[in-house]
């Protein structure tokens, strides 16, 4: 049995599966609705940076000044100017750190800024003035956001201030920038333009949906045919057993990619996500991801006696995978044992690689680790899956 015949058989099977899929109106509607729900849900639950407005921030000015000069008032004026333009914050005055904490606890403030008592004196004596950002730990998304936004605002204000100071020394503006900031922070931050939590989430969701689609679809499709009896029709034909899995996988892959594209389109049009890297690389990564998963799906299919068991098995595996692979929450904030679990999940690497490509515009050389892990994972799983499947088919 030549490889060519096997491939052509698997295409026949994939084609047949897709025909069945497209004739199932309800299934098709759900297929399209699922990513839409997923996307809008996640998109609106997790606020994007641009949507930050009127966040109430408690401001504590402990600065004692230096003589009658107060650098902090200049700072606050600058902050208010920024705020007037963006409408980002609602500043309320507070007297000290404890009051800020109280305000955060009662929910009257979502964060705080504290200007230290020696702010002016430090600046005057050529040291750095300290500004503390207080965040609400119970709301990690918001606190991360505030930290990031304020950090950037302060950075810019600091640069402006420094430029003024240096200009006062009689150097022109461009050179002065080079003097006070020899490194451009934004460039090292790697992301240009607006970055939102959604940019972080979107690639992960895309990876997850495609994987989920294939992982639940494959066992369901095979065990369903086994239950109905049509699988016998294929098995009794002189075709390679692998053509059956291959065909089924192709069909599920097409289904998954369709959902992936839908997610991407929604992310771009509805939530302003920009794809920085090569879009073809994105799809290549998705395909590689599917390859790394399929083996696992096939093994489970072989063990599951009926469709119900197969789907249950898949859900049991998919759920921890969803949460541990860094799709929704950064892996770094998990305890060490969970981190080590997430390191063996292929979805982690797919999501990671996709994020690098979509957000950071990474190219293949930057993805060596992820790519090699996925390829190894896929090869090993396939090597296990093929004999297991063959055995299971002729029980």
């Amino acid at each position, binding site marked *: 049995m030549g490889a060519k015949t096997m491939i052509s058989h698997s295409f026949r099977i994939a084609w047949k599966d897709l025909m069945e899929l497209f004739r199932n109106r309800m299934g098709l509607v759900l297929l399209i609705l699922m990513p839409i729900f997923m996307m809008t849900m996640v998109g609106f639950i997790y606020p994007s940076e641009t949507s930050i407005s009127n966040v109430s921030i408690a401001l504590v000015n402990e600065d004692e000044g230096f003589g009658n000069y107060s650098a902090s008032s200049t700072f606050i004026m600058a902050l208010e100017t920024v705020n007037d333009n963006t409408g980002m914050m609602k500043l309320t005055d507070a007297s000290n750190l404890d009051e800020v904490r109280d305000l955060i606890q009662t929910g009257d403030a979502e964060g705080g800024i504290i200007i230290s008592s020696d702010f002016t004196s430090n600046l005057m004596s050529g040291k750095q003035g300290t500004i503390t950002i207080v965040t609400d730990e119970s709301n990690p998304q918001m606190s991360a956001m505030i930290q990031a936004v304020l950090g950037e605002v302060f950075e810019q204000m600091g640069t402006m201030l420094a430029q003024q100071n240096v200009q006062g020394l009689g150097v022109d503006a461009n050179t002065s920038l080079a003097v006070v900031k020899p490194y451009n922070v934004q460039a090292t931050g790697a992301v240009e333009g607006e970055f939102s939590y959604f940019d972080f989430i979107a690639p992960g969701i895309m990876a997850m949906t495609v994987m989920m689609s294939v992982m639940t679809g494959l066992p369901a499709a095979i065990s369903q045919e086994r239950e109905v009896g049509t699988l*016998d029709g294929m098995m009794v*034909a*002189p075709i390679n057993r692998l053509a059956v899995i291959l065909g089924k996988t192709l069909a599920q892959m097409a289904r998954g990619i369709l959902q992936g594209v839908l997610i991407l389109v929604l992310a771009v049009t509805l939530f302003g996500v920009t794809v920085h890297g090569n879009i073809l690389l994105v799809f290549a990564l998705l395909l590689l991801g599917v390859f790394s998963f399929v083996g696992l799906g096939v093994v489970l299919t072989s063990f599951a006696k009926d469709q119900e068991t197969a789907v249950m098995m898949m859900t049991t595996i998919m759920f921890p995978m969803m949460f541990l692979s860094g799709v929704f929450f950064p892996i770094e904030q998990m305890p060490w044992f969970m981190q080590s679990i997430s390191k063996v999940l292929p979805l982690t690497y797919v999501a990671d690689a996709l994020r690098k490509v979509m957000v950071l515009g990474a190219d293949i050389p930057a993805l060596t680790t992820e790519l090699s892990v996925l390829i190894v994972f896929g090869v090993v799983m396939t090597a296990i899956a093929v004999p297991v499947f063959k055995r299971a088919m002729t029980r």
Partner: protein
Amino acid sequence: MIEVRDLTKKFNGFTAVDHVTFDVKNSEVFGLLGPNGAGKTTIIRMLSTLTRPTKGTARIGGYDIVKQDNKVRQLIGLVSEKMIMYDRLTAEENLRFFGKLYNIPKTLLNQRTDELLGLVQLSKWKNSKVGTFSTGMRQRMNVIRALLNMPKVLFLDEPTLGLDPQSTVEVREFIKKINKENKTTIILTTHMMNEADRLCDRIGIIDHGKIDTLDTSTNLKKLVSGDDATVLKLEIPNLTKKMVTAIQALDCIKSVSQENASHLKIHATGDEAFDTIIDAVRAEKAKINSVENLQPTLEDVFLHITGREVRDKADNKIPMREHGPFRSKRRVR
């Protein structure tokens, strides 16, 4: 054409097929007759390469069913108990899909599809989805699907199960026709006596995974009765116990069974049996409403061989197995 040697299949300790040995000749119709759960389907599944035997071998057209499974698959067609059809595809699409799996060239496949659909009067439904078909239509589709590759051997697992009498007759006629015109060797399983009787050249009676007896229908019947047997069915409205005893006392009687208040079924031997019995009941002042001279049926054969009636057995078996130690692991097929 088919040589089966010591074929055995165990499912987690439960022996479904127990050292079965038989041969099927070329272009013969061979029937496996037995109650549900006797192992018929498992034999078919092993012979059609869908299940691997635990022990023993079988050859089809000279090819080993395990070692040369793909060669075997070229030769065979399977009509499974379950419908092998995709409901969302049309009749034609279904046949084309399965035909492609046999690498039949496109033009030939189209031609054959049309021919087969015509053969079972489904041509005008060829663009309708199989899901909309009636059970009879679906079963006809199920049969022609197995004929796409012009199989030398056709397996039919309970081909008329769940069909109305008209469709049953149609399917049976079609099976006979395939056997006659294409010289196809056919193995069919059934739990229906009359089906086996009508269709099969030879019948293997299978029970508890073993083939008890294997012969032509006529020979099987002789087995119960002998050549000069008489089977009578008498209807006597004023039947009494005394009459039954009187009949039983006769020399020619093998057995008497009372079917209900007025019906007696009598097995007897000898040329004079008929007259002797009638005289005996007459002497007891019996009023005879009707006399039926019956040929022994396969039902009698089965009863004779297994000691139980098919229907009884099938009913008893299910609860019996439910209580078995392997209940949770038991596979239905």
